[in-house]
């Protein structure tokens, strides 16, 4: 290792589902120890890029390198000990309890002969505590709220104990309070446990606030990457999303805050709504 090569990177990738090409000649580097967030409009290929990095989609050209080796030439189980993924949609099997689901994160560390060890016990307990679901351990997953459920899935991904963790839209379907809760949790894991996180997010302001490294994509290409303060400009948002906006400092954190431009008013002002 030279120290310059990040643990996870992709180079010259062509990503396609059957014949439908999503991206060509795509190269990306995930800085070690970063909380990288990928943003971009719908169908720009950001989830596809994440799937390629997670070994779920084999690039039809180019390679994804994990610790210097092609991720597709490594056994699934080996990859699963280094690289974790929280997919966009997972199904909690009927009747499964929180503890049982979180314990499944230990699967890549187990084998037919070695089923449950003291390490498994400790890691699962710690993962449930870190995500605040320890009290729910014996509850059924299907009776939890959306926010609780997402924390349980996150606990499962944590129990996998991978230095790299990919998150595909971890805040989708959550209300604003739960979105912030999940992102705070991610930031905490990133800071406290030193894991490298890569998340696909839709909300630009969330991305700007939580990311240490931002990647902006449009039509299968990376059009900007770096610190959120450098990447997220009004010009980039206009270019990538076709949205006129102003970018101001977030009064809470000083990170960029995207404020969409007000609707262009026609010449005649709207009459004030009648007061009943």
């Amino acid at each position, binding site marked *: 290792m030279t120290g310059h090569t990040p643990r996870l990177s992709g180079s010259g990738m062509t990503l396609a589902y059957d014949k439908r090409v999503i991206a060509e000649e795509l190269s990306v580097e995930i800085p070690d120890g970063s909380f990288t967030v990928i943003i971009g409009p719908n169908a720009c290929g950001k989830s596809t890029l994440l799937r390629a990095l997670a070994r*779920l989609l084999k690039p039809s050209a180019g390679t994804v390198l994990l610790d210097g080796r092609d991720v597709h030439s490594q056994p699934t189980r080996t990859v699963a000990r280094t690289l974790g993924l929280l997919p966009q949609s997972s199904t*909690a*099997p009927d009747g499964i309890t929180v*503890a*049982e689901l979180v314990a499944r994160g230990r699967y890549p560390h*187990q084998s037919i002969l070695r089923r449950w060890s003291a390490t498994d016990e400790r890691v*699962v307990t710690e993962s449930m505590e870190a995500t605040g679901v320890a009290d729910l351990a014996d509850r059924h997953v299907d009776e939890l709220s959306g926010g609780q459920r997402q924390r349980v899935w996150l606990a499962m991904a944590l129990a996998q104990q991978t230095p790299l963790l990919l998150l595909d839209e971890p805040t989708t379907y959550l209300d604003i309070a739960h979105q912030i809760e999940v992102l705070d949790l991610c930031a905490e894991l990133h800071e406290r446990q030193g894991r490298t996180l890569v998340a696909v997010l839709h909300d630009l302001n969330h991305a700007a606030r939580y990311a240490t490294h931002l990647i902006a994509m449009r039509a299968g290409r990376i059009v900007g990457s770096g610190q959120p303060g450098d990447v997220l400009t009004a010009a980039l948002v206009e270019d990538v999303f076709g949205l006129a906006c102003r970018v101001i400092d977030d009064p809470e954190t000083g990170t960029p805050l995207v404020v969409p431009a007000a609707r262009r008013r026609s010449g005649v002002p709207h009459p004030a709504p009648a007061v009943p």
Partner: protein
Amino acid sequence: MTTVAVEPSIGSRVGVRPRAVVVGVAALIATVVVAVLSLGTGEFPIAPADVVKTLFGQGTPAHAFIINELRLPRLITAVLVGAALAAGGAVFQSLVRNPLGSPDMLGVTNGASTAALAVVILGGSSTQLSVAAVAGGLAATVLIQLIAGRALHGFRFILVGIGMAAILTGVSSYLLTRGVQMENARALLWLTGSLDGRDWSNAIPMALALAVVLPVLLLACGPGLRILEMGDDAASALGVPVPLLRNGALLSAALLVSFAAASAGPVQFVALIAPHLAKRLTGAPGPNLLPSIAVGALLLTGADYLAQHTLSDNVLPVGVVTGLIGGGYLVWLLTTERRAGRI
């Protein structure tokens, strides 16, 4: 006085659920009870105590002949076929993530029966019939998988499977119209699924298939199948080699179901109902392979007992009984689930 609440370890809470063990053991005990009853019932009744004695080699020669030569092969075939159908069904339902996705709905059993039917119409031997049934079931499975595509998502597999079942039913009907009357009677009886006149030549191939396939399913596929229920992506991220596991589990299950069809004909509903019942009783996630197997053995042994002794003069094919029980269970299930507002 202070009470110290000792949290049980996570390991003790995530392992095999006690309820699953209870269900499995209870079903096994019930199977043994039905088996003893079944061995003692018939034109020549034998008391349960004498049945047990005879099984342990302490019976009279007459009892030994009736039990070991006449009744035991049929009973063992029922136990093994029930177990095989249940294991196959549990794997299918788990793979396609649909409680109705059983091999008798998805064309696998139809593959076995159509091939067997062709042999019957052509006047082949019973060995040829068995070989054809196994080959037909496997061929149908491979074909469904090839058409459904490499990704093999549950939904696509179900649609292709249902299509395959429909085509093969058509082919079977055509074969029946071409057959002459005597062969047709034999063919129809076989198509219903029957354990009548089953001897060791039916039990032994089934036993061998189970001996080979079950360890593969339980040890190599079981843990992965549990993970696979969370979705392909989640499973892959957890280190499950998804395509390999799917193909391996699918072929193993198809092999069991095809051998079951070769032994007893396409007995309906056991592959559908046994895993379903086991899952309901255990309340546990995962394919519940062992409890399903025990319930399947119980179901088919029980159904065959009813088939033999309900009508005094006429012996029912066991497939009729499983059809009645299975259909009844489904209707009951739909009604109760609807009342509970779950569907």
